[in-house]
């Protein structure tokens, strides 16, 4: 433990909108889709994309249009 009280110091980022894929290839596929890529703010890892928070319905609809059946965690 690094803190004097024995608790680990962390930064908390709340209300973050993300897409997580089961494989890196799927994330690549999403990034290659122009209509979806414009809502992607960044790639946090091979399988996690940071998404604009205000366009949930549009992004989910686009995922479905691509043939995915995303699990939506609200």
């Amino acid at each position, binding site marked *: *433990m*690094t*803190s004097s*009280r024995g*608790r*680990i*110091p*962390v*930064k*908390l*980022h*709340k*209300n*973050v*909108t*993300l*897409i*997580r*894929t*089961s*494989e890196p290839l*799927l994330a690549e596929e*999403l990034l290659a889709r122009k209509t979806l890529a414009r809502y992607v703010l960044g790639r*946090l*890892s091979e399988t*996690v994309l940071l*998404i604009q*928070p205000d366009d*949930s319905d549009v*992004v*989910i609809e686009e*995922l*479905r249009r691509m043939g*995915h*059946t*995303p*699990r*939506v*965690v*609200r």
Partner: protein
Amino acid sequence: MAAASQSPSSDPPAERRLDSGQAPTEAGPRLAYRAALARYRRTKLADIRLAQGMQPGSAQVRPAANPDEITEYLDRPAALRALIARLSTGSRLALSLFALTESTSMRTAGLYHALGMLGVPPTETIVELLDLGLLVISFESELRSVDYFPAAIDRSFETLDLVLVHPGVASVIRTTTPAARLPGVVSAVSQVREADGLEPILRLSALWQRIGIEPLRQTQQGVLYKRDRERLEEDPVLAAPFSDALEPVNDPAALLLALARRIGLIEPDPAGDRLLAAPTQFWDDNAVHLPQMIATGWMSMQRWQESPGELLDRVNSAGVRYLRIAALLWLATLDDSEWVAIDDLAEHLTNLWPAWDRPFLTDDSVESQVPKRKGGPRERSRAPSVAARRPREPNLLCLILRGTAHSLGLVREAEDRGSHRRVVQLTPLGRYVLALGPSPPPRPSFDHFLFVQPNFELIAYRQGLTNHLVGRLSRFAWWAQIGAALQLNLTRESILHGLENGETAASMLDTLRKHSQRPVPHNVQDAVTNWASRREDVTYYAAASLIEFNSQRERDVALASWPASDRPDPIVVSDRFLLVEDEHSVPFDRLRQTSSRD
């Protein structure tokens, strides 16, 4: 009221307000009742306390505190019972109307209209209840104090204001039926036709699915956007004619929407600009009581009516709502073996209340029944004018009894063996909804009512369905046809809908296997499993939390000591980040938050 009190009052407040004219009840029926009392003259309040049994000269009669005293006195069931025991039959009948429709308010003109149809002198009856404080007259914009009830009734009649009932009455009053006997009652009948009552439940489940997939958008005034309205009106399942109604049901999609809002199957979101499907739990919680909830919602519904024609801004003065309950209460005067022809019932109503079928409470054609001033206090003329004796609308009672009430399973029809006329009576469900009979026996059912076909179509026999199973199937199979034959489709979207409503691939297949007459085709099993598994390929987090560590080592230490709980485990995103679905699952007794970003 026995049956009326058994189901939860699930009307959304906004819907209650719009549909049953309960504008002042935003803060709750009891507060609205008390607030209306506070508009009375103090001497009037003292009169009410005295009428309730307070001894004259008692120190407890404190005019300034009387609204509270009256309200609190009626909060006591024993006091209410004692007062109700003193009432005339007509007044008990009036209170029954509130309890049966689970309403705490009515338009004064509407109550007046209903009592007239039930053969009860309206003014005397309403005044008797006002005198005892069981009803209170409420003006939205009236500045004068209420001091003389007949005059107040007249003013309320003209302004479409409300009478409110003390909310404790519903749990105490028993259903009272009209005292008179219907003419032309017959007993020898044949060819009895009775609906299974499933039609509205099946269609409501289809509506629930549609709105679950795509919520309805509405304006601040509660009006649907044109595109969403058309989506419902053009849906082949929702807009199709009711298959078991003996008369056409007007605008089925609008009826379903109004019913769904009344029973809480769809609800406005917090912002009020969308209508959302209720959580799946609704079906588990309410399956048993659904027929009664639907019937009660229908009886008090104003936003939709049986006869075609736009209500527009005259919703609050629609008269059909009061005819529905009056017609059922007249049928309730029949014994189990007795039937009556709708024509005879219509003639009976005409003799009692010539304008019984008026579409709006404020129609000029019924001015004869609106209070007329005769010198001092107003009295109500009962002599129908020429206008009031206009040709009847013969179909309205048919549309109510043979159309909606029959499809809801409240009324059954037969043929009189003597005259060969069509006659009607209440079903056991109808008597139960009116709190006049026991709960109807459960429908006989059989487990294997489904055909699961390789083309992903499910054919269902109505006979095997229960309300609970309708809800269960609606989670993951798409209603494609509702009629004598039922068809559901399995699609990728419907399976996703099931997953989002708590199902798993295994539970969905279990349901299909349990109720299918033949083994579920392999391709269907594979597809359901495949569709469900693909859902885990992509996860969308609308508002997740990311925990950022200073190093990978600290992340690993935190992960290793993460407390076990029923919440989802954190997910490793990168060397220094963990993803948590629920911020409340973060163990801050082990982590120290140095900063936070939203």
